[in-house]
């Protein structure tokens, strides 16, 4: 028995393999749930489904959760495509959150709504860009390790948020900001069609389309792909690699900033150390699972959000710790990632492979 690399597989076949993997993972995790909790796995899956899609409010929330995770995933994608290991999305989103919250708190009652919004957008995008550019500048000029650098920047951003929580705290000593402009609603995104989530979803929908076109059809997108494949090739054909790195990271940071804007102005209306909530890391997985394709990311981020919200629902329905759902999520992701092996390679038994 041995393993050989497949020639390019038709995409329908690859997706068939992935579908089979998902089904298999559901069966395996179902068996696991049955053995550990003695619950009927089908009813567990039904409750998970209901938890994510069981009412119009839940559907809106699932859609919004998907949109925010998708937004951060879009942000990390160009950098990853360029093989720039930006694991600093968490910090860049936090920077965006901080920028937005700062404007809402400091200028909430001083600026007219339109200019307040303009300032919020500018502040969030600028903060995200700054947070992303710092490691990018070091990478481009002195070839520092961007993985460690961006990772550390996350903790710096979280500590800044922690500090600001004590500066803007209410009540005294609580290190807690609470809802900003609670009674005036200044700087809050307006509800469209009666739903606060609409605007957040729309922003991300537009971003997704733009990002898809940008990566696939623009010159910039092509440059990113070339730098990702080989920096030397890029240099040889006369691309300014340094410029591409800086430009792409700035773009990543800007989109992370927008994600922070959505989180603070469109969702939480507050700032805390958990505003980004680890989504900056989850987004990396979403992006990889989707093979850096923005349209596929809609599905992968939906999958992650569905699993998360489903987990909460089974904790309520069956009164079991939602860690069980984390395990199920783990099993499902293991299968999805693992099936890529079968997309790229095939296992040959006996000598059949040798004849090829």
């Amino acid at each position, binding site marked *: 028995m041995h393993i050989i690399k497949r020639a390019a597989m038709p995409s329908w076949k690859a997706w068939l393999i992935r579908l089979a993997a998902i089904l298999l993972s559901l069966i395996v995790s179902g068996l696991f749930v049955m053995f550990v909790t003695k619950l009927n796995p089908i009813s567990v899956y039904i409750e998970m489904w209901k938890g994510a899609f069981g009412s119009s*409010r839940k559907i809106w929330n699932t859609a919004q959760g998907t949109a925010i995770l998708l937004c951060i995933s879009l942000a990390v994608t160009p950098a990853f495509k360029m093989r720039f290991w930006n694991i600093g999305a968490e910090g860049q989103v936090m920077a965006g959150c901080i920028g937005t919250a700062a404007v809402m708190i400091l200028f909430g009652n001083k600026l007219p709504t339109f200019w307040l919004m303009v300032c919020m957008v500018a502040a969030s995008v600028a903060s995200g860009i700054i947070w992303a550019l710092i490691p990018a500048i070091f990478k481009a000029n002195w070839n520092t390790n961007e993985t460690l650098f961006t990772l550390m920047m996350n903790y710096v951003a979280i500590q800044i948020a922690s500090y600001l929580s004590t500066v803007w705290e209410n009540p*005294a000593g609580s*290190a807690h900001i609470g809802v900003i402009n609670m009674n005036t609603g200044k700087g809050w995104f307006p509800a469209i069609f009666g739903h606060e989530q609409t605007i957040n979803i729309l922003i991300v929908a537009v971003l997704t389309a733009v990002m898809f076109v940008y990566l696939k059809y623009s010159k910039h997108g092509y440059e990113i792909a070339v730098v990702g494949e080989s920096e030397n090739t890029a240099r040889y054909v006369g691309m300014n690699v340094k410029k591409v790195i800086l430009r792409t990271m700035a773009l990543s940071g800007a989109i992370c900033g927008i994600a922070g804007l959505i989180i603070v102005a469109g*969702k939480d209306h507050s700032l805390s150390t958990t505003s980004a909530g680890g989504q900056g890391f989850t987004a990396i997985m979403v992006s990889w699972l989707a093979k850096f394709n923005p349209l596929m990311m809609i599905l992968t981020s939906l999958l992650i959000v569905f699993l998360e919200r489903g987990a909460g629902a089974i904790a*309520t329905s069956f009164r079991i*710790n939602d860690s069980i759902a984390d395990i199920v999520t783990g099993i499902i992701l293991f299968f999805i990632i693992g099936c890529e092996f079968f997309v790229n390679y095939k296992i040959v038994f006996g000598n059949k492979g040798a004849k090829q």
Partner: protein
Amino acid sequence: MKKSLKIICALMSLCMVIGLFAACSGKEDPTTTAAPDASVADTEAPAADESAAPAAQTDLSELKIGFIFLHDENSTYDKNFMDAAYEAQAALGLSDEQVLLKPNIPEGDECYQAACELVDEGCDIIFADSFGHEDYMIRAAKEFPEVQFCHATGTKAHTENLANFHNALASIYEGRFLAGVAAGLKLNEMIEAGDITAEQAKIGYVGAYPYAEVKSGYTSFFLGARYICPSATMEVKFTNSWYDEALEKEAANALIQADCVLISQHADSLGAPTACEEAGVPNVSYNGSTAAAGPNTYIVSSRINWEPYYELIINAVANGSVIPADWTGTFETGSVELAELGAAAAEGTAEKLAEIEDQLKAGTLHVFDTSTFTVGGEALDEYLADVDSDEAYQGDTQVVIDGYFDESNPTFRSAPYFDLDIDGITLPVAE
């Protein structure tokens, strides 16, 4: 697909309407938030489930109750609330379908959405357990006036003036004082045994934030210890987190290094008890017994028992009676409790605790008796506490009455407002 979705939505909204009807019919006389000067009698009214039942009675079996928790049972803080929810459910004979628990709800929009989802599912009462949930609960309370929102540890009910939003806490400072008494007895035992001198009776305290709830907690604990062991001193370290096992353990170890001979804490993990067990230093715990983590070092733990409160509110809603804006549980309501004594407790602790508890109940002993402590070397004759939170953090209410600091008085507010730094307690160097 689209069609079936529509049908589901229609069915859901139908269920909601029916649910609302059921809820409303039970509350013909709208529950009103008592003005801040609500008498204590008001707060006990709902408990009296005898004769004087109002006209509108909802059968308990028709009620649905939702609970929102910040973490799950791995946090001692949330476990304390979850256990109480289970106990209240059992005590009132409610089914699992009537009691919906939502653990791991962050202090963000998720809390508001969770509350809304619970309303969608027909809940008549929604409880939340974490300080940071408050603003989101208020938002939901404004949106759903027919549902009662009850928030533990919050500070805004008496200023928001919403008929359906309420705060609650307990006079846990009295429980802390008792826990301090147990600590003082332990210190005395160590002094008598010659393990330490009287001057070495230094307590270490791991606190979460320099926030009134924490300050009130460690101060009352310290006053209890010093009541028994007059030479006791205390050093406090803050972790700046409500739940961080590594930080809490680290802080406890640092205090042990700094010659603290007994440790207590106000943070939610098992970090400090574990550090104490490893170092063989006695520990006074919070939120319930930690004997499992510290079989040789655990002395006692004070905790708020939320079960009486849950039961009271659920009955109040069923009876259509008034829920006050602020409710403070006491020894009498069964809300302030000490867990069982551990192996490390000094001889005669149980008897002494019973004696002091009786004095506290009778009002002959006050935890914050102003003759027992000084602030900046001076006695505290008066103090304007910041009861109504405002952006300027200005004091607004005179809380020193009859020679003692009147903490957690429900006519002011249930959440602690004792935020003074008394002499004898060493705090981290000012930030």
